[in-house]
């Protein structure tokens, strides 16, 4: 069984960059060394110093381009849902089913292949993406790829019957090219924008909707005075006002 996720043939140059992004450690080291050598060079105030400053400057330049170089990541996430592969496939294959129900990330289907992914509620970040189903076999797998420049992503969702009475193993393997480097990615992950975690939470919510008909929440519950510390940490707990609650539907409605 071959599952096509590669759009290279179709889109030629639009293949993911082969160059791997550097690690945070490397980038930080390049920066630190660049800064130290430049400062040393400038402080010497002689021709040797100028050479040092030049070298240091190059390292600084490398550091900046490392940060700006697109980060290429891949991840895989799997969940077990207590339904048959056919049921899970049908549920997932119809984003209209879950698109408006998921808390985060929220999906909106436009006309054709356009999909808007919204993170962080109404005032949050929006990514518009064009998605194409590149390969599919009902109740077995669906492969997709994005066709836009900003955030490239592609992957495959697989459905497999789990052993015994455990239901269905749904897995997502995907790769993406984010518009900024690995330091930006780490920062994004801090505020909950890590692609792997977003996919994990999306799958978790599909599982919760399918098994129980609702996504557990505490948004809008009573809370006492949060104070400075508690308010600062709201981001961490994804605490948002009750107004952003969305009505939910039972799986299969």
């Amino acid at each position, binding site marked *: 069984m071959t599952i096509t996720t590669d759009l290279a043939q179709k889109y030629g140059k639009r293949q993911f960059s082969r160059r791997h992004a550097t690690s945070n450690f490397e980038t930080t080291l390049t920066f630190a060394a660049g800064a130290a050598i430049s400062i040393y060079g400038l402080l010497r105030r002689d021709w040797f110093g100028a050479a040092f400053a030049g070298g240091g400057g190059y390292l600084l330049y490398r550091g900046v381009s490392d940060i700006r170089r697109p980060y290429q990541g891949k991840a895989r996430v799997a969940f077990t849902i207590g339904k048959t592969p056919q049921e899970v496939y049908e549920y997932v294959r119809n984003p209209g089913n879950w698109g408006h129900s998921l808390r985060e990330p929220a999906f909106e289907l436009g006309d054709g292949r356009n999909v808007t992914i919204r993170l962080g509620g109404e005032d949050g970040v929006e990514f518009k993406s064009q998605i194409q189903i590149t390969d599919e076999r009902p109740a077995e797998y669906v492969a997709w790829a994005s066709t836009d420049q900003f955030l490239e992503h592609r992957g495959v969702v697989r459905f497999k019957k789990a052993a015994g009475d455990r239901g269905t193993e749904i897995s997502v393997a995907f790769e993406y090219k984010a518009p900024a480097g690995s330091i930006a990615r780490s920062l994004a992950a801090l505020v909950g924008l890590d692609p792997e975690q977003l996919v994990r939470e999306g799958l978790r919510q599909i599982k919760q909707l399918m*098994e*129980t008909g*609702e996504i557990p929440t*505490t948004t809008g519950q009573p*809370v006492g005075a*949060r104070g400075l*510390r508690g308010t600062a*940490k709201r981001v961490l707990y994804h605490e948002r006002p*009750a107004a952003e609650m969305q009505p939910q539907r039972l799986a299969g409605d």
Partner: protein
Amino acid sequence: MKALCWQGKNKVEVERVNDPAILNPRDGIVRITRTAICGSDLHLYDGYIPTMEPGDVLGHEFMGEVVDTGGEVKRVKKGDRVVVPFTIACGQCHFCKHDQWSACDNTNPNAWMMEKMYGYSGSGLFGYSHMMGGYAGGQAQFVRVPFIDVGALTIPEGLEDDKVLFLSDIFPTGYMAAENCDIKPGDVVAIWGCGPVGQFVIRSAFLLGAERVIAIDRFPERLKMARAGGAEIINYEEVEDLIEELKWMTAGRGPDSCIDAVGLEAHGTGVAAAYDYAKERLKLSFDRPTVLRQVIQACKKGGVVSIPGVYGGVLDKIPFGAAFGKGLTFKMGQTQMHRYTERLLKHVQQGEIDPSFVITHRFSLDEAPMAYRMFRDKLAGCIKVVLDPWAGPMAA
């Protein structure tokens, strides 16, 4: 409404907060008639549990009257008197279907936090940190109960609140701790800690057929209550060597099962206890596993170590060689509440146990901050505090 909010280590305050609302279709709202302070609330009070934040509403032992239900609630009706288990379970995931309710997959909105710390997430809990779901608790006048059909135990007419309130946590917790010991005729069960859970362990062990129960503590009033429940008692501060004492009392066999109903804030005596205390003060550890070491050391060959006491982090100097050498079985974890509530309600109805024996103090919700301090410092013989959220000057 009034609610008791955590505001930091050693600081809880009664605040005015919004009334809870139905947030999900399977929610219910309960008007609380009785609530209690649990020993595990003291771990929050003492600042041991991470991801507690100022403003979080406390409390996970409560009961009351259903005043509102969501569109998908079928079994529970408005006006029902219910006791609500402290663990929240969906009833439909693999774990719920296999009677492992406290491992429910679908009730912790912050599952990712617990996954980072423990690998996998357990069920959501009321009023017990964001890591455990961040649900507002029941030391308040009203509470929102998710999946109310699955958890809430409907109480028949004629049973007063005090008799059934503890079906929300400590009675099932004590019972499961005893059941985990797989008690056989002639068994001797040793129990560390005669707080409220310990008291229920003693009585449950006898209900399950234990021959003898040996109860260990240092507070006279707790030991007295243990003796009233039929246990033999040891004040560990008065014996030279606790392990030798237990060996003597069991004629060299050792207790068939040993129960740690103390958990992470153990006191103890001697070098090991001082070491744990120092390490915890230096913030090198959350837990002081003094009792855990003792139960492992004291347990007979092939015996069971049952742990209802709460632990949070990475424990130090655990005599695992002894555990392996003796072939011990370990059983522990958050109580599988939904497995026991019906069964234990029958014991109460048939008059085999009256759980209200453990209550020593009653206060209004307004007095809760004082009650926390009193319970923590074990002042005035305090063993169990029950709160009435509608009594007192601030009553709404």
